[in-house]
């Protein structure tokens, strides 16, 4: 079995080499046949990596301890779901996961490349993808081989780290890596277009779909990671500005910036150098994020420990940076835009502001993350920048971004942009005042809370008013349901994007509420006793021991009664897993509703069970964060799927009444643009 996995890996390396060679030949000799070979080599590479992954999965499921990896990360008693999740519990497996996802996405990308584009362009894209794939395949084969044979076959494995035995850990790494790997595709498309010397903006259309795809998975991955930290790490928070968390945020920030500035390039042919640079930076940051997790250069709760792999990554990173910088400088002249910005108040100005803010945030987070390393280099003493550093920048910049979301739907191109903005902001501004005053009047005298409420209310109102206005105009002609579907279907990008914004606003509300108004206290209780905490009466009923599948658990039974007399029972636990006897693992109990979470952590107890320490936290509005995650997922999916009406092309589009058409034309968006362009090259072949 081990050999089978290694053979598949070796063939994958071979296939990537063939792909590199064939794509270079194809570019040099304009050979369509060589391009075809390169294409199929990528497919073979994907198949081979999938095969090696299948081998590892089979070994994990079957508990084949002749695999060192299986012996290190699973044991017989481990539930099936976690046996599968053990695939990405260690260094080698998670790198393999990265490679598999990258190869599969690359295969999809190369077979959906626009067949009309020059051979050299496709060849350069395929070459880029195969170089990245080759790097990972080589790295896995020579530096992090998950198929290594156990020195001696043990009777049972070491078991999976209890921290990873959580449902969020089954889903979080694959989704995050899908995001990381996904950003390689737009980078390769950009490299292809630049190397081939394209001067038009056609290529940017194809990158859009892939960037949205990668963005969606990266976002969901980050939210799930936050959820994992919240329920598993037991300190009551979901984000700690830990280096590994930051690593996933960095490409998210630049990816988000690209999604916005991309529109300026599509509509107006500007920001072209900037967009190319953003794609390159996002790709490099994805690799950097992986490097940060692998190399152990920064202390983190998540890191995998120091290893040689870090050196490989560092070298690859340097090459990627040098290549990208060189490429963009070389093509600078062709990338220069022909047009000038129209105005600060218009869409261009706002998109510019969004880009400056997001890139600035990225730089700050990047500097903060590597500060311990930089400061050690320059002063000899390592210095950490605590959460206060990040919050100081990210909180105001984040609120400013939400404020820009509020004026987003009101923006148009053209001369009267400022006037339209002024007339349209009346209702959102009123909503902002009402919300701010309401929050203040309810006794929440905190500047952040008031500002957040006001800005969030403005953003939500602006989007709703805009949507309602369009819907009402359509409802004169159509039934409400049909109008709703047709309206959204008519402009996926606009309404999907608005929905994503609403999701982000919900997340911002949740983050503000839970970080400004969180209360945290630790109590010592005897069974039968009660204490008052943040409007709750907490009664410790009992503490007892029981047995789980592969762990021994101590569970406290606590009744929490709120001011209205409603009570819930919460059972925070501390587990000792059979294979990890030296560590106890906290399983917090959370009583949650849309207003707040009551978060209980069993902190400790005396041997005789008389004295029990319980850490209680009330975190307001945390559920809004998870709800926001769902909303933005739906929004991003709407952006990703093709227009339903264009799929059923046979039904002719109904003629809109003049009034409706006028309304529709006023709305900025890619309607007209889309029809002028052939669809993105990536929609199904």
């Amino acid at each position, binding site marked *: 079995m081990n050999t089978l996995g290694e053979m598949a890996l070796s063939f994958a390396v071979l296939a990537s080499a063939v792909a590199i060679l064939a794509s270079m030949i194809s570019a040099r000799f304009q050979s369509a046949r060589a391009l075809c070979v390169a294409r199929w080599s990528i497919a073979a590479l994907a198949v081979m990596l999938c095969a090696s992954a299948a081998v590892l999965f089979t070994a994990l499921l079957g508990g084949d301890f002749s695999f060192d990896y299986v*012996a*290190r990360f699973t044991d017989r008693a481990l539930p099936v779901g976690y046996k599968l999740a053990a695939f990405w*519990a*260690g*260094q080698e497996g998670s790198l393999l996961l990265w490679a598999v996802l990258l190869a599969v996405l690359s295969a999809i990308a190369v077979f959906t490349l626009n067949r009309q584009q020059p051979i050299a362009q496709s060849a350069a894209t395929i070459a880029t993808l195969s170089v990245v794939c080759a790097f990972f395949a080589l790295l896995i084969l020579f530096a992090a081989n998950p198929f290594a044979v156990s020195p001696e076959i043990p009777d049972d494995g*070491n*078991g999976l*780290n209890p921290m*990873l035995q959580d449902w969020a850990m089954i889903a979080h790494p694959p989704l995050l890596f899908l995001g990381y790997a996904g950003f390689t595709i737009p980078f390769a498309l950009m490299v292809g277009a630049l190397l081939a010397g394209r001067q038009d903006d056609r290529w940017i259309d194809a990158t859009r779909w892939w960037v949205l795809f990668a963005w969606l998975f990266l976002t969901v991955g980050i939210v799930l990671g936050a959820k994992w930290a919240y329920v598993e790490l037991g*300190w009551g928070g979901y984000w700690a500005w830990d280096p590994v968390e930051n690593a996933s945020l960095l490409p998210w920030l630049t990816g988000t910036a690209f999604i916005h500035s991309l529109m300026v390039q599509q509509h107006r042919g500007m920001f072209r150098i900037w967009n190319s640079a953003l794609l390159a930076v996002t790709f490099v940051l994805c690799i950097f994020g992986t490097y940060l997790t692998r190399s*152990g250069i920064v*202390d983190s*709760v998540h*890191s*995998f*420990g*120091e290893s040689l792999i870090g050196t490989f990554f560092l070298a690859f990173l340097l090459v990627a940076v040098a290549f990208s910088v060189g490429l963009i400088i070389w093509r600078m002249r062709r990338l220069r835009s022909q047009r*000038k*910005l*129209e*105005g*600060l108040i218009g869409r261009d*100005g706002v998109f*510019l*502001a969004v880009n*400056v803010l997001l890139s*600035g*945030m990225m*730089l*700050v987070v990047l500097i903060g993350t590597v500060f*311990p390393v930089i400061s050690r280099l320059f002063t000899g*003493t*390592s*210095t*950490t*920048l*605590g*959460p*206060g*550093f*990040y*919050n*100081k*920048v990210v909180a*105001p*910049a984040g609120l400013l971004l939400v404020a820009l979301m509020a004026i987003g739907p009101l923006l148009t191109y053209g001369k009267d942009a400022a006037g339209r903005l002024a007339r349209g902001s009346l209702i959102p501004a009123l909503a902002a005042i009402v919300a701010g005053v309401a929050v203040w009047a309810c006794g929440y005298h905190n500047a952040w809370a008031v500002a957040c409420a006001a800005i969030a209310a403005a953003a939500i109102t602006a989007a709703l008013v805009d949507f309602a206005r369009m819907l009402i105009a359509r409802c004169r002609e159509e039934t409400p349901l049909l109008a709703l579907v047709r309206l959204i279907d008519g402009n996926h990008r606009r309404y999907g994007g608005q929905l994503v914004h609403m999701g982000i606003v919900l997340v911002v509300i949740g983050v503000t509420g839970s970080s400004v108004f969180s209360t945290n206290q*630790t109590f*010592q209780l005897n069974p039968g006793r009660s204490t008052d905490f943040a409007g709750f009466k907490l009664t410790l009923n009992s503490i007892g021991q029981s047995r789980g599948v592969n762990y021994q658990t101590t569970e406290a039974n606590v009744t929490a009664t709120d001011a209205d007399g409603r009570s819930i029972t919460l059972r925070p636990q501390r587990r000792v897993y059979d294979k990890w006897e*030296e*560590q*106890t*693992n906290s399983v917090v109990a959370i009583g949650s509703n849309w207003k707040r979470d009551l978060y209980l*952590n069993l*902190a*400790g*107890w005396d041997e005789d069970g008389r*004295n*029990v*320490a319980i*850490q209680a936290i009330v975190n307001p509005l945390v559920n809004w964060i998870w709800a926001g995650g769902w909303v933005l997922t739906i929004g991003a999916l709407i952006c990703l799927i093709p227009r339903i009406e264009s799929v059923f092309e046979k039904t002719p589009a109904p003629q809109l009444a003049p009034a409706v058409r006028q309304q529709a034309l006023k709305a900025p968006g890619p309607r007209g643009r889309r029809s002028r362009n052939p669809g993105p090259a990536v929609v199904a072949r």
Partner: protein
Amino acid sequence: MNSMRIKLAVGACVLLGAITYLALAGARQAHVYHLTVDQFLSDGQYRTQRVRLCGTVDDKHFSASPASLTASFLLKGAGVELPVQYHGVIPALFQAGRDVVVEGQLNPQGVFAADVMMTKCASKYESAADKASAS
């Protein structure tokens, strides 16, 4: 250069300047030195500020009480030791002999009062392998 470009450049610079200003202010407030016990004791400047110390928990004078959320122990450096009084939730992996990171400040009695503690297990995910190689 037309006036629009200048306006845009000024706008972008104002935003970037604000971000830089906030970052500098944040760094001044939230920076914490990372020191070994030896560095900490050899330089007087650190005695009045919050720092993060890294060392090994000595097995002499070690006491931890999870129910009352306190631990007191000696943090060992290369050649010196520092008494530490920790108050907070005791991390799961905390025990004598472990490498730990504590954050806090020296109190007038010469005891390091810590309110943050991390059991330094640089390779959490790999500790199974350590265990295997140790046995």
